[in-house]
């Protein structure tokens, strides 16, 4: 069945539908990742977005079972690829990409020139778009105007206990990836997974706070920012990841802005301004922190070696850290996994009692 990807500037890409045969609208973004589509498609940060894959062959190793997903379901609103693979091969494969898309009612288009599309998004910036079939009954839709976090966050606190763990942390769920939770558990922490608008202070007992990744504009979630502001005041050790780093910066009084087309790839080079060491990181964000707006109690920690944007912030005592990239990888490299270790080190202060 023929499908069209229509952009708000009028550009049309004609291809073939290979997912659910419904129409969809959202923000069109591209990722240059060459592997890790099951992880990416289930990453809640992509909620509300039509994802364009620049690597032309997608679906080669099929879809593994749920344990490899970053959340319970597929999060993207739509998918655009050059070639969809109907002959996957992998020992963990349980279904083809197209059948997975259909199960999740996510439409997808193949056979379009995703490089040309990417060049358009790069030069004009991220745009709204829609995947339409013959009906074209759907309007453009801007997810960033909504509170997307509320749609992907858990509804009530949930505890993940780790036997013999000495420390407990609170994972503020703005649309967390499972790999973040796993990295915390792996380091012997007990984790309270809490909703985006749940203030744990005075209610739960914990030693530190992790603010997860998540979709959309960080300024929308005023309640989350307020919670983190409390954490700063209480000198709680904090680790903000991606969206979480933006929340931490906003809570500290800094400003964020929308990038022209964002960073979505597994090969973003960053430099640690403390050690001068460089790392390849996995990224997925459309907003960034303006480092000039940081208060004096915070400083820029990482910068992007390609475009110089802020890739991390840190408080002067080093207890509050925010990284724009994903130290947990999934997809992508885990060269910055040591950030979780530093966070665990920071927990060695007194526990906050309710």
């Amino acid at each position, binding site marked *: 069945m023929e499908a069209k990807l229509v952009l708000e500037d009028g550009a049309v890409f004609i291809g073939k539908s290979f997912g659910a045969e419904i129409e969809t609208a959202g923000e069109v973004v591209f990722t*240059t990742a060459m*592997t890790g589509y099951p992880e990416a498609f289930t990453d809640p940060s992509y909620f509300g977005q039509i994802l364009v894959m620049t690597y032309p*062959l997608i679906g080669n190793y099929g879809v593994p079972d749920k344990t490899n997903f970053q959340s319970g379901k597929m999060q993207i609103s739509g998918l655009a690829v050059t*070639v969809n693979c109907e002959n996957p*091969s992998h*020992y963990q494969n349980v279904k083809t990409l197209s059948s997975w898309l259909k199960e999740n009612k996510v439409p997808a288009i193949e056979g379009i020139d995703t490089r040309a599309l*990417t060049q358009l998004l*790069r030069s004009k910036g991220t745009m709204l778009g829609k995947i339409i079939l013959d009906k074209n009954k759907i309007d453009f839709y801007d997810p960033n105007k909504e509170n997307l976090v509320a749609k992907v966050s858990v509804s009530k606190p949930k505890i993940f206990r780790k036997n013999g763990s000495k420390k407990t942390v609170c994972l503020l769920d703005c649309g967390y990836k499972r790999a973040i939770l796993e990295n915390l558990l792996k380091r012997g922490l007990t984790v309270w997974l809490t909703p985006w608008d749940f203030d744990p202070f005075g209610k739960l007992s914990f030693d530190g706070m992790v603010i997860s990744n998540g979709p959309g504009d960080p300024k929308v979630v005023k309640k989350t920012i307020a919670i983190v502001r409390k954490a700063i005041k209480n000198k709680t050790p904090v680790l903000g990841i991606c969206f979480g780093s933006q929340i931490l910066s906003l809570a500290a009084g800094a400003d964020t802005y929308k990038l022209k087309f964002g960073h979505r790839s597994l090969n973003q080079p960053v430099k640690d301004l403390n050690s001068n060491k*460089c790392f*390849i990181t996995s990224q997925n964000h459309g907003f960034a922190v303006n480092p000039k707006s940081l208060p004096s109690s915070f400083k820029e920690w990482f910068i992007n070696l390609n475009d110089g944007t802020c890739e991390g912030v840190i408080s002067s005592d080093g207890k509050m850290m925010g990284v724009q990239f994903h130290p947990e990888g999934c997809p992508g490299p885990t060269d910055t996994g040591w950030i979780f270790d530093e966070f665990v080190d920071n927990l060695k202060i007194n526990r906050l009692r309710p």
Partner: protein
Amino acid sequence: MKKNLPKKVLILGSGALKIGQAGEFDYSGSQAIKALKEEKIRTVLVNPNIATIQTSKGFADSVYFLPVNPEFLEKIIEKERPDGILLSFGGQTALNCGIALTKSGVLKKYRVSVLGTPIEAIEKTESRQLFAQNLKNIGLNIPKGFSARTLEETLLAGERIGYPVVCRAGFSLGGQGSSVVENKSQLKKVVKRALALAPEVLIEEYLYGWKEIEYEVVRDCRDNCLAVCNMENIDPMGVHTGESIVVSPSQTLSNQEYFNLRQISIETIRHFKIIGECNIQFALHPRTGDYRIIEVNARLSRSSALASKVTGYPLAFIAAKLSIGYSLDELKNSVTKTTSAFFEPALDYLAIKVPRWDFEKFGLPYQTISTEMQSVGEVMAIGRNFPEVLQKALRMLNQGHEGLIDGFDLPSAQLKKIIKTPNSKRIFQIASALLKGVSVKRISEITKIDSWFIAEMKKITDYYQFLTKQKKYTKESVYQAKQLGFSDNQIAGIFKTDRKKIASYRKKRLVVPVVKQIDTLAAEYPAKTNYLYLTYQGSKNDINFNQQKQVIVLASGPYCIGSSVEFDWCAVNTVLALRKNKYKTILINCNPETVSTDYDITDKLYFEELSLERVLDIYGKEKPFGIILSVGGQIPNNLALSLVQEKVKILGTSADNIDKAEDREKFSQLLEKIGVDQPVWEQLSSKKQALEFAQKIGFPVIVRPSYVLSGKSMSVVYTKKELNRYLNVLDHQKIKVVISKFIQNAKEIEADIVAKKGKIVLCAISEHIENAGVHSGDASIVFPPQKLYIETIRRIKNACRQIAENLMITGPANIQFLAKDNQIKVIECNLRASRTFPFVSKMADKNFIELATLAMLNKKLKVENQILDLDYVGVKVPQFSFSRLKDVDPVLRVEMASTGEVACLGDDVEEAYLKAVIATDQQMPQNTVLISLGGDENKIKFLDEAMVLSQMNLKIYATHHTCAFLNRNEIKAAKLYKIYEKREPNIDTFLSEKKIDLVINITDTDFVSTKLIDDDYQIRRSTVDFGIPLFTNLQSAKLFVQSLKAKNPGKLTVKSYGQYIA
């Protein structure tokens, strides 16, 4: 940041091209030189490979055309006193020399520091034992294995691991001396040979059916690490990576597998403290994700050159910068120019590498491939789906394949049997099996090739079958076929029509490929990249086509026996000359081992097929001023006539005249007209005629199929019986033959020419050491000539002048002559640059290609047609790779067999020749020599030299008749029995126990008995297998002995190229 940079750096090249060590090191060395020059560091390069670009003017500050071995290097170090040395840009040869120079204390003595990866790290990665121990210590998995130094240890190891096992030699290049062994008796046999090549062997667990994956990783002195690229071998473990079809990036790895192996790669280079580039090879279990680290190469390699071309990341350039103290974040991405060099490329295309084997050259249709390298070159295709890149690559091989579907129309049972064993044609056999209805799953089970690849191939065979059922092609079906990589020719074949019809049909309907850039970041950042490819899997061109003065240069295509780095030198120099003259240049090539495909050589690089269709695609889009096809060897030259038919503007000699030179009839008429002689010949279409003609002109004759050029399937035939045998093979295929008189004991002479509008601008005449009958590519060549009569030279120059005039030559040309008693005869005339162009250009210190380019551009030129009289002599010597080519007879003949060449300079021919022979890795005889001379003439002609050898206190062994002859002539010689005589003292025992230092085996071509030929073959084969120097040609053997007498190999002069030409 201010660096403490070295002032003078010695760079080691890799020497002659050979199987396992080829053009990729010209590329990496050239980049290293550029990287150092930017820092104003003085560079001294040692490399006897005269056809390379790195040894050209404008690259290194000082060049030594000398052997890359510890003895010569010590002398060069003593003379030049560099403060740093680069070891990782000249392959295994350079690395081994570095280890030797460290061990002998030379580097310490002269205070030369090893730049980049420290020598301890190199040693740890090179010794299998240290390597295994180190990786075990940090908890990484390696194959179970034991190293052994004796046969007994080896057999014990075999027992403990359990058969089948892999046996490999330590410190090997290209997997030489490694093989899969099924049982104890096989192991015994293999180990004998392996221990002859290396002091230790490794017996390892055989990882049959595991995937083979490679990573190219980079580390700087601040411990920043990158994985630039990964690659997946389509052939699973058991096939050397140089023999495998390889895709990049990996296609069947999950995120977890990809990043797990990447992580291990980085842990590994951190552990070894590598600074620069490193290649890591893994085996990955297809059902569990378990892995083994197979190999770590702490140097630039074939794979790193491939990775550079796949990604656009200049690995060698960056590695050179890192080795002098830069960190990755201080360097820029040379493609985007704005982003950092500390990044991992993201690809929005895929690339495939396919090896090229030349087994046909040795009369073998296809051959088993395994853990040893036998391929002579490779191609790389880029595209946006797998069927497209696969079919492109198979065409690029230039072996007559139009795509994946090609022959092997056998019953499916038989196909299932032959695809079980990896072989040089397996990909076509798999396609045939698919056409026969064998399932993807079954083929994957049989071959252990991941079913993903087979299923992708099935897309091609399915569509082929679909098309064959259609009555007529449509826009949709042609477009679909083009997306699957079908060529116009292939489609035309299916519909029994003409290529032109398909081409014009699709062009009218706008079914044309689009041009895409390789920008390293998948369009994330704007890039000014000039690195391009064509694809049908896309809708938009990345670039605008401006119509300034652009010239397209067609480069060489894959390296093979007969076309190698010399044509890359020609193409690069053409581009440089064009750019100097303010032309914009477009280069087309598909060979990843080349300098011509380096990112900064040309204004635009199309990494594409050198096929008529693709050249026309590019020509149509770019609308250049003209196209140059006379500098890339035979592949581009063969396109001349068909391009002209398509109204393409060719620069240089007109296609009409190219045709006149290539059409034997027309060329003979021309020679007759100008009164230049040529050996009698005739084209014959029946066996009877052929035999009659041969008898009329008298044996020996040269016989060849009429449709090929450049010595393919050519043979010198001495008897009627032999000719019968030759024709019987051919008659079967209904091929016409050309028979010409073979003139014995004639000298062979080459004339390399640059002419403009029929007037010779420059002409270099060089002589072969071997008499005619040895292919010019296998001959040793002397320039300027030392043993030609003035009269001969004069006649040759006259003939050249007349031929140039009559063919109105503009640009390069090469004419080959025979000379006997001042009588000259033309044997070949090619209106293109020849293999000897770089050699004579460097010897004469005149860039023949630059002048040829100016001629083709119609620029004013000074005529310099004088004899090039020099104070020094250069000798070019072939490099053979016989030890790699199992079962091939290592003898010189009209078919070319060498894979590379070196050239050295000296004050006389003996000095230059001796240096050159040493530079091809031949050890000088210390104690013993084996002489076997067939026939009386050879015996008599070699007598003086045998005496010399005897006077040099070498113990002479000889075969029966030779021994008797020598003894009769008062030369002491001891008799050895021939192999078939099975009596001791036997030649085979002496060779296998390395009791012989040199073998001179010259057969009598007039006296042919199968038994003798077989036995001589066995002597030669064993000699090569045990790594003993071998001479099979009378003239070169004589010159070698005379040179040994005249010069002390330990005291040869060490002079730079600059000193010679000053």
